[in-house]
């Protein structure tokens, strides 16, 4: 699995979304979750953990810009929704592959459409500004990911560019500039560079002056001087000389000649652009004057993005005003048009728009008469769009009431009445609702009764309604800024609130119950399931007594009196009480990382009583109650989360194996008792992400272990066993990096190594599950030394080889090889075997072998080899013993 790279992820996935529209995250989940489609299920699960950890950390990071943190927060919100929708499927590699496949199909069409739009809109120049592109994406292609947008841009051969700031003045007094322009015209010259350097194949001036063929002097005072000298050597051409004189004076006054040249080229372009000349023609014109094509594209692109526009008048002005929806202004402009044809055409246009406004207004009034406020509003809006500067129309639109709310319902809630309704389609979050109450019937208008609610929302609670009688409610809607109230939605209800908020406790067999009841209630009837009686204390409490293990259900009914004197009963409320005897807290609790990948915890506890009901809670902070304290059940459920998993039983002992999040957590058992839950023995356990890819390399007597560190883990613990030897080593990531892994020197037997990560947490250390590796033992070492007695005159000599093993070596055959040449022999075949000596078990005692050495030319080598493979490891002495030179 490729490792997760947070920096690259932020650059590629997060930062491009900094300026996204609200709620507009691309649906490219594969990139968002950094999923590689080749991953297996465990890799996907691991990546999800990593990426969520990264999001959480980055969303809270102090050193990140708000815009970046906002993206991370949006990712987290979206993740919650996705988890709700897809649950465990997110952890399956198959799901991601199917998702990507279905998404690929659906996006290809959109990418092509975007490419086509870009080609049509910006293809002439092949450039689009960032703002234009963003607007286009926001309008039509919000779901495309950045890489898909890049693909569309590449397909359309359009690239993103920023407009360049163009000179708005020539830098010369206007009169002088006009003379310069006229001089160039009279001299048949297209541009200032041509005046200074003669005919050029092409040149650039937008950012810097370059030319083909190159001109070293550029657009400087030196170039002007050289041009003046050149013209002085020729006769005639007065216009060019005059233009050069103006340039010389400009150069002397520090005028930027490059900007001047650019302004001169663009003056023409700006003028043609205002007249509506298409960009292709502008491009052709600029390149025709010698400007390099890329410079010309960028220059025209920048001109198109300039905001200044020429004022328009006459018929065009009327057309523009009508298009803007300013009918009154257009009517006023009619009088300024001088040409009779234009005046007639303009009047026709104005009359047509006036007629459409009138038509919309009439349609709106008809809709109002038949009670269709939405249609009326729609018609008025159309009219206002055509004549937004008509204050009367705007005012009429403001006076249209909203359509009424839908489906008002009234239900008893606690001691009051709960009213709820649905919003009409045209209502929004800011729509204000007024709920009015009237005894006996529904109110007819917003002032007909008592106002119980007057604000946005779709629910209201009326706690003041008198009980025992029929009341009517009406809800009216109005816009945020006021305006007319809508027609009402109504409902009626007979108010008979039942008893509410019953609290019941059993202590030593005594049942105590309390509740709330509406003040208008005449009495509360309490009946027992087994026919027994209770002792009432007023309208809001009673006491009773239960035998051990006895249960009893109580039915409570509030009684009212109607206006006519008849009795009325509210709906009944039932509660149950049981005398379970005294509960005991859990005294023994053990925690351990469950065998496997280290992501589960095994919680073992002893039941205090075979019938005891024990609830396990896990929290990120220690339990605030003392051991044995009785805690109300709502407070228990508010502490941490319920622990769920696989439960196994062994006598009185129970073991629950459950998924465990990383980090330090406290585990607390609660025994459910009659008066609440008894807090049992607390224990804590921290779990960290384990190391992966544990590997080994033997380098001489040294073992080097390496592994992949999980993100944000800084310490690992290595525990090893080798025969009788045991050891433990703690390494920080920095130490691991400095030493190039974990290096161990230990005995010769089989080596078993366990590596786990350790993370410091506020309540102690979190440790991961173990990664385990067993290294087989190496063959025993057999060392030898070589001693040579040469015969100087005759050549050759005697070689003595002494063998000694650190551990017993079984039978083997030692070959003593002599080889001539500068290169050490690599095997018996590289030289002559001068001795073949079978050995029947070698030990620490030295064994000496002697062989005759043939006559060899220097340099030559004496080296030993074993005939059998893997029996022992033959260790060479220093090469100076082996080599004769």
């Amino acid at each position: 699995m490729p490792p997760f790279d947070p920096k690259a992820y932020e650059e590629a996935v997060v930062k491009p979304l900094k300026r996204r529209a609200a709620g507009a995250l691309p649906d490219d989940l594969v990139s968002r979750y950094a999923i590689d489609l080749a991953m297996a299920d465990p890799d996907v699960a691991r990546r999800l953990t990593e990426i969520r950890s990264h999001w959480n950390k980055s969303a809270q990071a102090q050193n990140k810009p708000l815009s970046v943190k906002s993206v991370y927060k949006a990712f987290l919100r979206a993740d919650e929704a996705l988890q709700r929708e897809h649950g465990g499927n997110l952890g399956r590699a198959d799901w991601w592959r199917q998702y990507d496949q279905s998404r690929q199909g659906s996006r290809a069409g959109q990418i092509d459409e975007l490419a086509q739009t870009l080609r049509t809109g910006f293809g002439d120049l092949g450039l689009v500004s960032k703002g234009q592109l963003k607007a286009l994406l926001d309008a039509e292609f919000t779901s495309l990911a950045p890489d898909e947008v890049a693909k569309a841009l590449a397909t359309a051969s359009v690239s993103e560019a920023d407009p360049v700031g163009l000179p708005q003045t020539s830098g010369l007094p206007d009169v002088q500039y006009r003379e310069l322009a006229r001089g160039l015209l009279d001299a048949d010259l297209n541009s200032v560079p041509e005046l200074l350097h003669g005919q050029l194949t092409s040149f650039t001036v937008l950012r810097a002056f370059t030319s083909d063929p190159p001109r070293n002097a550029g657009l400087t005072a030196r170039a002007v001087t050289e041009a003046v000298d050149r013209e002085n050597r020729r006769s005639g051409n007065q216009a060019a000389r005059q233009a050069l004189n103006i340039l010389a004076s400009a150069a002397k006054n520090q005028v930027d000649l490059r900007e001047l040249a650019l302004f001169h080229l663009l003056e023409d372009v700006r003028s043609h652009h205002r007249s509506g000349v298409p960009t292709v023609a502008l491009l052709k014109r600029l390149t025709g004057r010698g400007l390099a094509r890329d410079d010309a594209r960028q220059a025209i692109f920048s001109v198109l993005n300039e905001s200044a526009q020429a004022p328009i008048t006459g018929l065009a002005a009327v057309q523009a005003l009508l298009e803007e929806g300013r009918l009154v202004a257009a009517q006023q402009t009619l009088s300024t048009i001088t040409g009779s044809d234009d005046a007639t055409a303009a009047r026709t246009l104005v009359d047509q728009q006036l007629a459409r406004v009138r038509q919309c207004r009439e349609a709106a009034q008809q809709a109002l008469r038949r009670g269709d406020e939405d249609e009326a509003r729609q018609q008025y809006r159309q009219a206002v769009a055509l004549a937004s500067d008509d204050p009367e129309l705007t005012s009429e639109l403001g006076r249209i009431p909203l359509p009424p709310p839908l489906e008002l319902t009234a239900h008893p809630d606690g001691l009051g009445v709960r009213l709820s309704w649905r919003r009409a389609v045209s209502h929004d979050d800011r729509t204000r609702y007024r709920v009015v109450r009237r005894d006996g019937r529904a109110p007819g208008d917003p002032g007909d009764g008592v106002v119980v609610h007057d604000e946005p929302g779709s629910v209201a609670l009326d706690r003041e309604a008198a009980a025992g009688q029929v009341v009517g409610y009406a809800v009216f809607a109005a816009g945020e800024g006021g305006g007319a109230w809508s027609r009402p939605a109504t409902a009626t209800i007979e108010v008979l609130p039942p008893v509410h908020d019953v609290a019941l406790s059993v202590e030593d067999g005594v049942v105590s119950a309390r509740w709330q009841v509406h003040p208008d209630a005449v009495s509360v009837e309490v009946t027992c399931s087994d026919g027994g009686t209770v002792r009432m204390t007023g309208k809001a409490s009673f006491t009773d007594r239960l035998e051990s293990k006895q249960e009893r259900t109580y039915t409570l009914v509030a009684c009212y009196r109607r206006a006519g004197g008849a009795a009325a009963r509210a709906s009944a409320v039932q509660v149950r009480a049981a005398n379970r005897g005294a509960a005991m807290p859990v005294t023994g609790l053990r925690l351990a990382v469950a065998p496997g990948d280290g992501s589960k915890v095994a919680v073992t506890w002893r039941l205090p009583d075979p019938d005891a009901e024990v609830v396990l809670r896990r929290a990120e902070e220690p339990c605030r109650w003392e051991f044995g304290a009785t805690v109300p059940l709502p407070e228990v459920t508010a502490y941490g989360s319920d622990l769920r998993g696989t439960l196994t039983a062994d006598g009185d002992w129970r073991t629950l194996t459950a998924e465990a999040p990383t980090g330090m957590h406290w585990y607390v058992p609660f025994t459910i008792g009659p008066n609440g839950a008894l807090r049992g023995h607390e224990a804590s356990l921290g779990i960290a992400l384990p190391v992966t890819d544990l590997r080994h390399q033997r380098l001489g007597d040294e073992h080097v272990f390496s592994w992949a560190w999980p993100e944000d883990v800084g310490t690992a613990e290595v525990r090893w066993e080798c025969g009788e030897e045991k050891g433990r080593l703690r390494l920080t990531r920095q130490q691991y990096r400095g030493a190039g892994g974990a290096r161990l020197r230990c005995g010769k037997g089989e080596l078993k190594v366990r590596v786990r990560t350790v993370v410091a947490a506020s309540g102690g250390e979190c440790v991961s599950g173990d990664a385990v590796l067993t290294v087989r033992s190496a063959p025993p070492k057999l060392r030898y030394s070589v001693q040579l007695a040469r015969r100087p005159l005759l050549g050759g000599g005697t070689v003595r080889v002494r063998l000694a093993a650190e551990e017993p070596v079984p039978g083997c055959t030692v070959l003593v090889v002599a080889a001539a040449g500068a290169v050490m022999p690599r095997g018996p075949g590289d030289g002559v075997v001068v001795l073949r000596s079978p050995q029947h078990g070698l030990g620490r005692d030295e064994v000496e072998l002697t062989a005759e050495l043939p006559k060899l030319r220097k340099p030559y080598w004496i080296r030993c080899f074993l005939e059998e493979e893997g029996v022992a490891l033959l260790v060479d002495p220093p090469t100076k013993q082996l080599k004769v030179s």
Partner: protein
Amino acid sequence: MSKASCPYCYHRIDLAKLRFQCTGRATPGRDRCKREVDVDRQRLTGFSGAVYPTFPPRETRNPLPQRLHDCPACGGSSGIRACQVCHTPLPANFADSRSPLIAVVGGKNSGKTVFTTVLVHELRHNIRRRFAADISFAGDRQGGDVSVAGWLENYESALFGESKLFEQTRSAADGVKVPLVLQWRQARRTLGREVHNTSTLSFYDAAGEDMTSQEFVNAQSYLAAADGLIVLLDPFQLNGARDRISVPEIAKRETEPPYNVLSRVTELLRTSHGLGTRRKIKIPIAVVFSKIDAFFKLLGEGHPLLTRPDTGPFYDESNGEDTDEHMRSLLTELDADDIDAHLRAHYKKFRYFGVSSLGAEPDYEQARVSAGGVRPFRVDEPLLWLLSLDRIIESRKTA
């Protein structure tokens, strides 16, 4: 008088005639010097920033070297010494002891940049502890035109922290690039007294592309000025290696036999030093076979090349000789004994080394270090050998 190579322009310079650079602090009553672009420095090193002027030391009959001189223009006293050729300020103790320029050269994909980065990391962490030395960067610019922090971010943090491999090193224009310059300051006991010696080490990480033709090699002016060479050879490019081990696809794409790289370097050194046919090149050359981890299985667990030498504060000469012989033997096994023949024919002093900068094969396609991180193997030995020859560190026979 002692000479050394300027680490910035690679000219051999007389250490007794170094120039001084004005500090910009004038004496009272005189105008301070102005920063200006130094044309010579710009031409020779490519540095175009405005700097205070340099000036030659005043003529004096005092035979002892003068550490401070007054600027003739503003009168301010300065102890900043600069190269008399390119006018670049030199590290403070550059002139006081041996300051070798060590060039790291090799063919494309031989791993020079990774080797140099790992070597500098080893110098700044493990070797520093082993020799009880103070090893730090000298100068503002390192390894091109970046600050020390920039180099650490771009190279050391990228490799060790983010496990990223580097892109191919780009050729330096005209062979001019600022090397990595480090100062090695270590206490020594001389005549019963403890004295501190400071040496300046300069590492030039060449682009492999610059080794692809004799013309390119000749343009590498630093090579002629180097005091020691570390030649990295890619064992994947040896014909014998491809038949014996699994060679990554990327190594098969761009092939350049190590022999060719070596012979081009030899040709340049012979011509630049003006050596006759009978004489050998005196510059010591450490011939380093990188990526030796790929041969661990082939060599077997007990092979002497897999055993690290003693890690005392000295260079283990005995282990070095053993390694040299075993590497020569391995070369012959890999059908690359032509390299040995070439070295014997042209170089007076050379030694073989087998190192692995990363310790395990990286993911070449993703350009990432293996999951276990960087695990250098014997990367320090070539440099320690060269330093022992220069007597900057002690050499000891352990067997």
